[in-house]
């Protein structure tokens, strides 16, 4: 086969299949016309109307330092545009959770528009909100004072390049399976039962708040039913009228009643899910479905077996459901095509994976979902496929085939055996851990009973080297950040140097954990989310909101940036200064303080002669393993005192290695200030020279069981790797080997540097070109030169 055959244009690749039914094609076009269409899911702000009302919480968004300067104006804008909600007279007499529940109920049931699009079969349109925090004057004053204190510290840590500390919503898997199975009505019955056993008035009111929130979902659905009936009455097309009548019937039934048919299950799931985004005022980021193909399967089976649906009809319903998730992006839509959707929110769907005895649980719905993914080519929902030892060769080959055909990565792969070890390590019983799901990008989380707080707190691991080489002081500002670990010129041995790095790591973890705990406390005290709490196991029983640590498992994840840069830096000092003595500490320090200007020979020596993580080089990999397990275990010692949530480690670097780069001094691996740090658990850009198998083995040596969140690992493959069926089998074999030898999560970019260069030169021709950047998709032509260069610079494993 020739190279031309294997490289169709990007436009062809990222367009939908021409097999899509007319209905779906039109709905897909509707979404993509967000710069022109009249229906929009831009956020609607709702206020109690008090002069002190707050609609916005900085801690929800504080993991994104790029927007810190805009936070006050976003807050102001929401307040200015907010719709006042009429509230009952006794509103202010209730506890905060109940006030939030009443507010949510009133806004959804009396103010939220109910739009049904032409042709759609699954309904529920507007869900982006900015809801009043429903605080009274005294609470507002206290909250804002505490928030100011926390934000001052968060901004300082961000400014110093230490990291970020937030309490981000989303990143959770509500117990949707239970809603489908017993209906919200069934959940309410359980809560009434629990309430009967509780004597505290506060506890009882809290449970009432959960119940009222669920009634909000019921009553909003009834409004959609009514809307569908109105449309049906005016509908001249017989077929469409029938559909609208069926939609009305279904919306009168679910999510309140248990679902029976596949259509009912999808409608129930969508409304339940979209209202979590509405309740948290957070558009989709990380709010995930869990093992979707498992809990939906009985409904699919029922509808197929009863002859009520053909497989094709089920697929069309599924496609209608699929598109809905993308409207999360409407809040960015006015920026125009592409720019509006330049990052992925990560409403994840977990597919496949093992059962309690390691058996494979893929089913026909899993396969059907793969067809939909392939034919729809949409950003949301994002599928994650769980692979494990007993996955069938047929399924694995299909996965490899889709990866091979797509540019960028249509889904991410999570590896059960290694993921489960991490969950067991953090305390989840082994007999439950097999049933984990995935949130956000790749973060392992239990379903329906775990707020794992992924991406809440993010640490720049590389900073520890900077501090260890500068007696605890930030090199740019001279600010004393960590403890005084001494002048590096006095370090007599590698052990002394390593100890200084470890001491600084501990100090950095402490700074971020303390700041993260402040954000966590703020949210716990002032931002209950009764609707989400109603969907999380244990909250009703404990009388505690999910944000207070009310569910069964409660973690805050500290995501580590730059482990390879850290490891390479420490390995370089170990080898070059203390073992081979090719460099004195004095000269190294001079070179680093000069940012290697005038020390090109030193920089080159460090870059080319020191061992590098990512090459299956035991020397570098051992240093990396030591540092990785060290900081991960150190992190696990900490808890957020107010909520009791325990900190755990993760490697999801998002794009932090870009903004942190100028804030981090030159490092002993030969990196200059401003050059990017490594992403996820990948090697430093361009330093993994031995191909994907070596890179996979290095990652496999990191001791990732101490990193329960999981670790982002990207390999970029040239299209030549997958140009024939024989090569696709080799890719499948590579994935099977990853199950044994690799880490917890892998994404593949099958794209070559030449294509990316061409896209830089002619952005218009490649406006559709998607690439995957540590767990999310981005339009390559819109991500800015810096990140473009970074993607090109990553080693392209030419095969």
């Amino acid at each position, binding site marked *: *086969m*020739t*190279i*031309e055959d294997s490289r169709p244009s990007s436009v062809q690749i990222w367009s939908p299949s021409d097999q899509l039914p007319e209905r779906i094609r039109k709905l897909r076009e509707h979404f993509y016309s967000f710069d022109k269409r009249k229906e929009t899911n831009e956020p609607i702000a709702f206020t109690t109307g008090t002069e002190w009302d707050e609609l916005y919480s900085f801690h929800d968004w504080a993991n994104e330092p790029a927007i810190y300067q805009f936070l006050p104006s976003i807050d102001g804008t929401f307040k200015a545009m907010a719709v006042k909600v009429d509230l009952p007279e006794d509103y202010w007499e209730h506890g905060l959770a109940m006030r939030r529940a009443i507010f949510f109920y009133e806004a959804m049931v009396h103010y939220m528009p109910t739009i049904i699009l032409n042709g759609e079969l699954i309904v529920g349109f507007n869900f982006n909100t900015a809801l009043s925090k429903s605080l009274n004057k005294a609470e507002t004053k206290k909250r804002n004072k505490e928030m100011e204190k926390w934000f001052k510290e968060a901004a300082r840590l961000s400014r110093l390049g230490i990291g970020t500390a937030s309490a981000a919503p989303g990143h959770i898997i509500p117990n949707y399976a239970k809603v489908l199975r017993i209906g919200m009505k069934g959940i309410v019955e359980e809560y009434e039962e629990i309430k009967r056993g509780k004597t505290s008035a506060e506890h009882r009111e809290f449970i009432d708040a959960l119940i009222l929130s669920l009634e909000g979902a019921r009553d909003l659905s009834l409004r959609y039913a009514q809307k569908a009936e109105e449309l049906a009455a005016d509908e001249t097309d017989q077929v469409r009228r029938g559909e609208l009548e069926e939609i009305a019937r279904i919306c009168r039934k679910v999510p309140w009643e248990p679902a029976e048919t596949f259509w009912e299950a999808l409608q129930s799931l969508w409304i339940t899910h979209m209202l979590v985004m509405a309740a948290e005022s957070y558009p989709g980021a990380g709010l995930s479905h869990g093992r979707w193909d498992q809990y939906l399967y009985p409904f699919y089976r029922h509808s197929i077996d009863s002859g009520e649906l053909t497989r094709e009809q089920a697929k069309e319903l599924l496609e209608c459901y699929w598109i809905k998730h993308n409207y999360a992006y409407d809040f960015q839509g006015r920026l125009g095509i592409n720019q509006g959707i330049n990052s992925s929110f990560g409403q994840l769907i977990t597919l496949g994976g093992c059962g309690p005895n390691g058996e494979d649980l893929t089913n026909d719905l899993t396969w059907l979902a793969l067809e939909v993914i392939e034919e729809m080519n949409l950003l949301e929902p994002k599928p994650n496929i769980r692979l494990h030892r007993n996955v069938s060769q047929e399924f694995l080959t299909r996965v490899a085939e889709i990866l091979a055909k797509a540019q960028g990565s249509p889904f991410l792969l999570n590896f059960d055996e290694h993921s489960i070890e991490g969950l067991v390590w953090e305390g989840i019983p082994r007999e439950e851990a097999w049933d984990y799901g995935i949130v956000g990008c790749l973060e392992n989380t239990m379903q329906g009973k775990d707020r794992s707080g992924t991406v809440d707190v993010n640490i720049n691991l590389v900073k520890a080297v900077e501090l260890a080489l500068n007696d605890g002081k930030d090199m740019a500002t001279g600010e004393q950040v960590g403890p005084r670990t001494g002048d590096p010129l006095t370090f007599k041995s590698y052990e002394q140097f390593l100890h200084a790095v470890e001491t600084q790591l501990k100090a950095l973890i402490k700074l971020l954990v303390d700041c993260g705990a402040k954000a966590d406390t703020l949210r716990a005290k002032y931002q209950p989310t009764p609707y989400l709490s109603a969907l999380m196991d244990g909250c009703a029983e404990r009388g505690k909101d999910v944000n207070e640590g009310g569910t069964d498992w409660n973690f805050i994840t500290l995501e580590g940036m730059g482990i390879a840069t850290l490891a390479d830096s420490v390995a370089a000092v170990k080898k070059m200064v203390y073992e081979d003595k090719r460099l004195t500490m004095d000269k190294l320090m001079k070179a680093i303080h000069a940012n290697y200007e005038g020390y*090109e*020979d*030193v920089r*080159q*020596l460090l870059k*080319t*002669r020191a061992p590098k993580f990512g090459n*299956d080089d035991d020397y570098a990999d051992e240093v990396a393993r030591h540092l990785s397990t060290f900081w991960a275990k150190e992190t696990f010692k900490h808890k957020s005192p107010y909520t009791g949530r325990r900190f755990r480690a993760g490697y999801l670097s998002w794009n932090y290695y870009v903004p942190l780069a100028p804030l981090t001094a030159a490092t002993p691996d030969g990196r200059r200030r401003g050059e990017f740090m490594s992403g996820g658990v990948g090697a430093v850009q361009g330093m993994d*020279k*031995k*191909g*994907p*198998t*070596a890179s996979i*083995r290095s990652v496999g040596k990191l001791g990732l069981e101490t990193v329960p969140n999981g670790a982002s690992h990207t390999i970029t493959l*040239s299209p030549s*790797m997958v140009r024939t069926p024989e*090569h696709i*089998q*080799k890719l499948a*074999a*590579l994935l*099977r*080997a990853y199950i*044994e*030898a690799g880490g917890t999560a892998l994404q593949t970019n099958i794209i*070559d*540097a*030449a294509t990316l260069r061409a896209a830089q030169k002619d952005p218009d021709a490649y406006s559709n070109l998607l690439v995957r950047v540590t767990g999310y998709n981005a339009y390559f032509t819109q991500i800015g030169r810096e990140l473009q260069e970074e993607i090109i610079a990553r080693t392209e*494993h*030419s*095969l």
Partner: protein
Amino acid sequence: MSVHGLITNIQRTSTEDGPGIRTTVFLKGCPLRCEWCHNVEAIDPKPQLVWHGQKCIGDQACIRTCPEHALTLTREGMVIDREMCTVCGSCAEACPTTAMELIGERWNAEDLVEELARDSVFFTTSGGGVTLSGGETLYQPEFAIAVARGLKERGIHVALDTCGYYSEKVLRSILPYVDLVLYDLKIMDSEKHRKHTGVPNERILSNARVLAEVSIPTWIRTPVIPGYTDDDDNIRAIAQFIKDNMPNVERYDLLAFNNMCVDKYEMLGKRYALKDAALMDKKTMERLSRIAREIGVPNVQRSGMTREEGKIVRIPQMEAG
């Protein structure tokens, strides 16, 4: 007593040198002098010193280190006095950037086996293994046999990529440790073979018959080089030879010429006859495959980049090796 040998490179995740995911090791030294050689750095059996201009930062650590004073940095670049240079490698060791490079790493067989076995899990899942290549693998017969035996003892699938030019005895002594032979048949006309590769082909053809006699699975490979091996008659003759003599052949690969090795020639200061040659035309490759198929050769495959009429395909730069 351990056996030592020289290699130029170890390439992991190799997907083009036999079945599955493989690690390919390139041994140094070759009896042939093919004009189109792609691994020109592996021809000379001795270590070679080379200078990479684009990596040099002019710090002259090499010049200061050289015990023979064999190096001079001129406007045109580094001049290596090959008369004075003993290829001791001190300059390469001193160079901070790897601009001075010693091609040819000395390994003992046990350590090399250990290194090559690193990707065993990938070999298992993919049906891959290790491919011994070069240069000519059997130019260092004792070393090659020791490595093949060591791999075999670990249960690793071994492919021997070879030109076939050595004594029958050498071939027979390695075969017990080999699972698959990747065997080159380049030109059937012996005189032309001698002209373009430096040796006649009778011995190669007779060794091919040895492979058939011991029934070892074999893939025949023909590099399709414009003006050298790409005429219909040549491919027809090779195919006929396979059909008539080699029932053990499982696959026939036609490997289209490319120009990616041009920099290696420059680096070694060698002239490259095919410097400006165009890629093979897609239609020609298709025709040649058809010819081989029609003669009755099983499993004819073609690979490599080709051009279509009026279209120029740019060749991406790849790492040497």
